C-alpha cells in the first residue's frame, strides 16, 4: 500500500464537497447549479468508498451504497432537468435570480 492514508482521501472529498457548495451558492444559471450538486454527490461517493477500503475492507457495504447513490443521482438529475425545462417554458429564462416569486 502506498502512504496515502484515509486522511488524504477524506481531505480530498471534503475539498470537492466544499467546491460544490461554493458553486451552489454562487452560480446564477440553474444548469450550472445542477453541476455543482453533482460534484457534491460525487464527493460523498468518494467518502463511502474510502471508508469501505480503509475501515471495513472485508465488507462491500460502502460499495453498494455508492452504487445506489449513483443511481439516485441520475434520477434526481433527470427530474431536475425536467423542472428546468418547465421553468424555462414559463419564465423564458433560467436565471436563479428570476425565480423569486415565493418572497415575502
Amino acid at each position, binding site marked *: 500500500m502506498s502512504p496515502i492514508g484515509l486522511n488524504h482521501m477524506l481531505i480530498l472529498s471534503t475539498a470537492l464537497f466544499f467546491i460544490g457548495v461554493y458553486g451552489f451558492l*454562487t452560480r446564477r444559471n440553474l444548469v450550472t447549479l445542477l453541476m455543482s450538486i453533482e460534484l457534491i454527490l460525487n464527493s460523498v461517493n468518494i467518502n463511502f468508498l474510502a471508508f469501505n477500503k480503509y475501515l471495513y475492507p472485508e465488507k462491500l457495504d460502502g460499495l453498494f451504497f455508492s452504487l445506489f447513490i449513483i443511481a439516485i443521482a441520475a434520477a434526481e438529475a433527470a427530474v431536475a432537468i425536467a423542472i428546468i425545462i418547465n421553468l424555462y417554458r414559463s419564465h423564458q429564462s433560467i436565471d*436563479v435570480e428570476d*425565480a*423569486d416569486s*415565493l*418572497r*415575502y
Partner: protein
Amino acid sequence: MIDPDLILILLFLPLLSFVINGLFGRKLPGSIAGMLGSVSILISFLLSMSVAYTYFFQVGNISGVYESLVPFQMTWLRFSENFSINIGLLADPISMMMIVVVTFISLMVHIFSLGYMKGEERYETYYSFLSLFTFSMLGLVLASNIFQTYIFWELVGVSSFLLIGYYYQKPSAVAASKKAFIVTRFADLGFLIGILVLSYYSETFEFVTLTERLVPGDSEYSQAASSAGFLGISALTWGLVMIFIGGAGKSAMFPLHIWLPDAMEGPTPVSALIHAATMVVAGVYLVARLFPVFSLACPVALDVVAWTGIGSALFAALIACTQTDIKRVLAYSTMSQIGYMMFALGVSGYGGEQGLGYMAAMFHLFTHAMFKALLFLGAGVIIHYVHSNDLKDMGGLRKVLPITSITFLIGCLAIAGIPPFSGFFSKEEILLASSHSNFGIYIVALITAGLTAFYMFRLYFSIFWSKKIEVNSGHRHEGSFSMLAPLLILAVFAAISGFIPFGSFVTSDGTVLETHFHLEFSILPVSLSVAGIFLAWLLYKNTSSVPGRIADKAGTVYKVIYKKFYIDEVYEFITKKIIFQLIARPAAWFDKTIVDGMVNTAAAATQVFSLSISGFQSGKLQHYAFYFIGGAIGLALLFIYYLS
C-alpha cells in the same frame, strides 16, 4: 320605622320616567311623554310627603331630638375591613324637607311645561331630562355618605348641562351649557379634594360616622386632622374649605357665579326648577349636612362661608339693579338669596338658641324655593306672551296677564320680606341670627334687603305698569290652564308657608327651637324694604327719564355695575392669556411631540426593523442555501467546542 321601599320607589320613579321618555318618547303620541313625566313626579311627591310625615310625626322624634336614620344601606365597594363605599339612604330633618321641596317644585314645573313646551320638537327629550334631574337631585339629598353625594352632584351637573343646552341650535345656549358645566366641574375638584381629606382623617365616607368622629375635639380623628397642616392651616380646615368651594361652585357664590346668568339660556321652566329652587341650593345643603363639623370642629371654615355668602349677596343685589333682561335679574336675585342662606349658616352656632342661623337658612331655602319658582314661572308666562326677554319690550301687561300680575306681585312681596308673606318670616330669622353674632354682616344684610326690594319692584313695575298698551283680546292669551295652575298653587304657598313652625322640625341639633316674633326688631328691615318699594314705584311706575339720568350721573360706577363688575372679562383674560398660553399650549406640545412621538417612534422602529428582517425571505434559493450552510457550520462549531 321608615319603609325603605317607599324611599327607593320615590327615588327611582323619575329615573324610570327618564329611561322610558328617553328611549321610547318619540314613539309616544302627542303629549303622553309629558303626562308620563308629570304622573311619575306626582307619585314621587305623594310618597315623599308620606315619608316626611312618617319621619317628622311618627318615627323621627326620638326623645325630643330628630335623629338621623339610615333606612337602607348596601356595601358597594369594599376597600378594607372597615373602609368601604356604600350606597345608602339617610333620613334626617333636612333631607326630608328637601325631598318634599324638590318633588313639589318639580311637579309644578312638569305641569307648567305641559303648556309651555307644547308643540316643541324634542318634547319628550325635555321631559326625560327633567326626570333625570329630579332623580339626581333626590339622590343627592338622600345620600347617606359623602361619596354618594359626589356621584349625584355630578349627575345633577350633567342634567343641568343637558337642560341649559336644550336649544342646541343656538350657539349661545351651547356656550352657556359648557360654561356651567366647566365652572361647576372645576369647583368640584375642590369638592373631591375635600372628600379625600375628610375621609382620610375620619376613615369613613358615611355622614353619620364622619360627624361622630370629627366633631368632638378630643377624638383621635379630629386631633390628627387638626394637627396635620399645610401652609399653616390645619388639614381639617383645608378639607372643609375645599368642600365649601365645591358647594360655592354649584351655588353660584362669588367668584364662581359666572355660569348662573348665562344658564338662563335654557327654557324658563328649567330655570325655575334648577337654577332657582333646587340645584343651586345644593351647596347650601352640603354645608348644612356637614354643619356639625363646620361649626364645632372648625369655626374658621364657617367664617369663610359667612363672608362669601354676604359678599355674594351684596354683589348680586347691586348687579340686579342694572340688568334689563328679566331672567338675568331673577338669576342675580337667586344668587343674592343663596348668599343669604350661606351667611345665615355662616353666622350660626350649634344647638339651641345659637342654632338660629341654621334653622333660618333652611327656612329661607324652603320659602325661597316657593317664591322664586313662582317668579320664574311667571316670567315664563310673560316671555311666552311677549316673545322676548327684555324689559323694554314689556310694560303695562297687568291688563292682559291678570293672573300672572297678581301672583308675580305676591312673589315680589314675599322676596322683599313684607309681612305676612313667607319671605318676611325667613328673612327676619336670618337677620336676627346675624345681628346676634356679627354686627358688620348684619348691616350689610340690611342694605342688601333694601336693594332686594328695590330691584324686584323695579322689575314688577317695569313689566306690569310702566307703559300703556291696548288690549286686543283673542290674538294672544295669557296661557293655558296648565301654565296658570302652578302659578296659583305656588302663590298660595309663597303667601302662607311663613306660618309653618319650622323650628319644630329643622334645627341644627334636632331639638325644637322656639321662634318668637320680635316686633321692635322687625321694624327696621320692613321699613327699609318699604322704602325700596317706594323708590321703585317713584322711578318705574310710569315711563320716565329719571332712571336714565340717574344712571348717567352715576357714570363709571353705573357702568361697572352694569357690566357685572367685569368678572367675565377677568376670567377670559386669565384663561386665554395665562392658562392657554402658559399651560395648555406647552402641555399640548408635550402630548403631541413627546408622548405621541414616543408611540409613533416605537411603531416606526418596529416597521423599519420588520422591513429589514423581511429581506431574509427573498425567495432566492441561494440565499436560503447560504443561511442553511452558515447555520450548519455555526451549530457544528457550537456543539463541538462549547457544549461538549
